[in-house]
């Protein structure tokens, strides 16, 4: 239970930090604004996925992939901000643009999508979960 709470708490702390960073970035007009926006852009999805996937005590094997996802997004968005004019050319495109098109879209799409499918029984929905829902089914309205 404590591990569950710690992962959930970590995700919520990250979410709060990301929300504060986004507010500061988009409202305050400070020089660090774009970097704060990049931090928020990388942190929000990872924190929310962690919040949704954490169950029965832990994130299990998801901790490392989610850390890698954060690194990938942070590095990609950081490269856009850090490289002057997008960096040197790769396949005719500036490095940061090539990374956006050929890395930041397909790698998470296939990696995370494959991970979701592979871990579905543990971090998605098991037959036991579904049986429990069916036993709890209510026939009345949606009001609590």
């Amino acid at each position: 239970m404590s591990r569950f709470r710690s992962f959930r708490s970590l995700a919520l702390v990250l979410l709060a930090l990301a929300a504060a960073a986004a507010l500061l970035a988009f409202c305050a007009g400070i020089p660090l604004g774009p970097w704060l926006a990049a931090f928020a852009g990388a942190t929000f999805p990872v924190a929310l996925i962690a919040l949704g996937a954490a169950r029965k005590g832990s994130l299990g094997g998801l901790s490392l992939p989610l850390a890698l996802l954060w690194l990938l997004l942070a590095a990609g968005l950081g490269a856009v901000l850090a490289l002057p004019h997008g960096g040197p050319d790769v396949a005719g495109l500036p490095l940061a643009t090539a990374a956006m098109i050929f890395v930041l879209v397909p790698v998470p799409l296939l990696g995370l999508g494959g991970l979701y499918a592979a871990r579905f029984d543990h971090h998605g929905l098991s037959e036991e979960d579904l049986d429990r829902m069916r036993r709890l089914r209510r026939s009345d309205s949606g009001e609590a």
Partner: protein
Amino acid sequence: MPVLGRPLIVAATLVYFLVCLGLGVWALRRTRSARDFWVARQGLGVVVTGLATMAAAFSGFVFLGGPGLTYRIGLASLFINLSIGFTPTLLAWTLAKRLRLLAEVREVYTIPDAVLARYGSRRASGAAAVAVLVGTVGYLGTQLLAMGTLTRAVFGVSLPVGVGAGLAVLLFYSVAGGMMAGVYTDVFQGTLMVLAAVAVFAYAMAAGGGFERVVHSIAASPRFGRGFLEPLGKTPALTALGFFFVFGIGVLGQPHMLNKFYMIQDPRRLRWLPLVLGSSQTLCLLIWLGIGLAVPALVAQGKLAPLAKPDDAAPSFLLGFTPEPLAGLAVAAILAAIMSTADSFMNLGAAVLVRDLPRCAGRRVKKELFWGRIATIGVTVAAAALALGYNDLIALLGTFSFGTFGAALAPALAVGLNWKRVTAAAATASIVTGTALNLALEFLARQTFFPSLPKPPLPPGALPTAVSLAASFAVLLAVTAWTGRREPALPEDIAAVMEA
């Protein structure tokens, strides 16, 4: 009348309309209950759900606005789509399972239904219903305007007649078959969109002389230069990162997408949803990249005159460079993109009037199926009248609709369905903040009716929607910290849904 004289394009449009009508007749025979009408009997497979979600999410903007935006600001426009690498899995892990399981234990057909079930609060559900209604009018109005513009271009009729012709088909299948017709036309429309996007991308690259020649022509051109290909180009970093944030996180509040998750027959099939949804979205977005790169390359190569209006990028390429059968397929796909989004909103708007708002007032409408059909007509005619009468206002509403949904609903759903401590007060405050702040900031940023009103006090390049989305999350977390010191006792079934 630019295309009336090209029979294959007219024929493709007519065939497309006929297939939609045929699906409407098919669905009419199968729609016998409110459950059929609102959530297609909860009998869909994962491929159908994935394609229908993609078709509902991608409007005509992907086919027309995206290439135009790229022509104007360069590849910085891709920040709008950059998040599709993770959004399907984000949706699946945070919301798809929870929403589908809610529909397993309760009679949950709409997003305000889910808010009511989770928080047990009519106020929170009512706030969500109002947000859905406001966003629906804007979204639906812009789709109807776009449909009228395209129909007018194909058949050479006036805008009201163009809107009326498309509306007749749309109303027929949406009123007759409700969501049953909506999702199966979405599947047809989604398939058409993917096929056309892939074919047009391949043809666009070929027309420009291959990918390398395309990017080289653009980089070497004095008109565009290498800046066109740079990730930010002339776009402020805050704008580009704002696009990424709004479209990456705001997706968690889009009712026309989330609603589809209720409809999957076997919740265990959600396993494949991210891959199906993500791959269909990626393929569809090839048209954005393909035309977005090919048109400036053709201009740079002297094969196409510089565009007077950036939004002419897709029509200029499709009508001037592609063979007629491909142009016909693409026009049908653009109509499909517009109508698949519109039909979802017609259903959502009707559900707010017939189901969500009466429930918030503690009432239930008898003969929900009948009144659902009437409300579908009412919502659509109202949106069409607004679109024709207040063209500018609807365009303004359309631009902020995605942001309104995201800011209003994403925190209360994505955090609230995964953290038991979130209270009804926090959810209501977040929904109201997201809706009101987004409306106020966007109105101040774009309105020209009252010159004395100030512009929103935001730094240059900051998107008002990004501010309202961040504020809505902050309010949810802060009010929860204030009011939710102890985990509230939830009904057993809701607690089970959140623990699964």
